[in-house]
């Protein structure tokens, strides 16, 4: 999945630093969002819907045989798709323990998203992170 996006979180942080202003960074997020593989319409159900976002967001975590997760998520808004891409770069391909041990807030702060997203959009991002962590946490509860 990370290869589909053709970049790493480190490269993303570098690119963000390189881009001069937030207009360009949002444009970059939009481009990143365009690369995100879309969810199938049949997956856009209430069960997978992440509430607390202004835009519509759906998110699934598919467990792999090696214990890691492939995250599939989509939104009807491109900037949100870009944020989902960032989320994927942070969490995709990790196992439950690694996901719960990853502090995404530090990465968001490095990207400046904590200051430059609107408060409602920040809440939306937080809802997505919470969903990823909750689904990872559930899998540990189920296997122990």
């Amino acid at each position, binding site marked *: 999945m990370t290869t589909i996006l053709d970049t790493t979180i480190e490269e993303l942080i570098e690119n963000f630093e390189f881009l001069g*202003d*937030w*207009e360009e960074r*949002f*444009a970059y997020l*939009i481009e990143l969002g365009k690369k995100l593989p879309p969810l199938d319409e049949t997956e856009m159900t209430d069960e997978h819907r992440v509430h607390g976002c*202004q*835009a*519509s967001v759906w998110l699934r975590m598919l467990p792999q045989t090696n214990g890691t997760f492939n995250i599939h998520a989509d939104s*009807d*808004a*491109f*900037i*949100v798709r870009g944020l989902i891409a960032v989320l994927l770069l942070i969490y995709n391909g990790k196992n439950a323990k690694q996901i719960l041990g990853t502090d995404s807030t530090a990465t968001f702060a490095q990207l400046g998203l904590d200051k430059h997203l*609107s408060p409602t*959009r920040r809440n939306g991002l937080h809802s997505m992170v919470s969903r990823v962590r909750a689904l990872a946490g559930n899998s540990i509860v189920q296997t122990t």
Partner: protein
Amino acid sequence: MNQGSETTQEAMDWTKLRADFPILEQTVNGHPLVYLDNAASSQKPQVVINALRTHYERDNANVHRGIHELSNRATEAYEGARQRIAEYLNADSREEIIFTRGTTESLNLVAQTWGAENIGEGDTILLTEMEHHSNLVPWQLLVKRTGAKLEFIPVNGDDGTLDLSQLDEQLDRAKLLSFTHISNTMGSVNPATELCRRAREAGVITVVDAAQSAGHTRVDVREIGCDFLAFSGHKICGPTGIGVLYGQRELLNTMPPYQGGGEMITKVEYNESTFNEPPHKFEAGTPNVAGAAGLRTAIDYLDIIGREAIFEHDQRLAKRACEQLAEIDGIRLFGPSEGRSAVVSFVLPDAHALDLATMADQKGVALRAGHHCNQPLLAKLGVPATARASFYFYNTEAEVDRFIEVIHQVRKLFV
């Protein structure tokens, strides 16, 4: 100043009025601010800011019962504001003006007092399909408590007009009709006078949500012929946290209290109390005195400009925006083509409304995007969100053109 005539436009230097609004003189994200979210909240002229400041610097005290100079001044400011608002709405008397926190509280007050006393099982409350959540949810709560039911006057579609073909039948079934004067999502101006006249003929009580109209056009409760009317201060250049409910005196006299506390009583014993007369009966606790003083100053300011002139200016800007937006291939533009207000809602074929508003903000243009507290209507129209530009008298033709220019620039990112 000459009001409402053809010479108004020449006489009025709209651009000059901007100097009265310090907040407009700033850059946002490196660009001059173009504030087009006036349907959500308006900006405040310096005179209103000064009124709040003066109140706290010179006149602040509790109202009504104080026996000292400052309390007298605060009481005069508060009750003077009530008198001025009665004149602004052309109400019969100041006793018909209740201060609330805003339109939402005003509507909840009617639902919880008049509604509790008069609505019962099997009764019908008639609304329209374009109501703001604040004129829908209070009635849903009342319905849940009483076993009454809701019925809706349909919206015709994207043009945002009401389908009144079944109105007589709907009114025959209804006990109360509550509707928005101007739609915050569609920009349509509903025929308030006709709706209230026909409701009255059918013996139906009327409530008008004037949140989007009270500061934009003439709102005369006697001409409209409504029983109740609600609006907010912050949308008409006044402070936040102060609003108004107008209610016909005979109706107010029959209504039970809203909240209990000080101010709303005449005599209190341990086990029971007798209540004050309207409007005080509905204003428990220390009121928002500074807010009332600020609101009074705001309506003085609006009346100097003239609401007819403001409405003409609104319509000129909305028309200019709509004409240019209509040139975009595949755009879905909401609201009527004729006689619309200052609210312009639209959906682009390629860019999501939220993305559009985020990128416009990067260029200093403040738009609204989302469901505009109007989820059922957007669901009916089949759109998850619209982008909305809403104008006020301090907006200029140049700002409309800048908004259009930014829309064109931002769109390129999404194709």
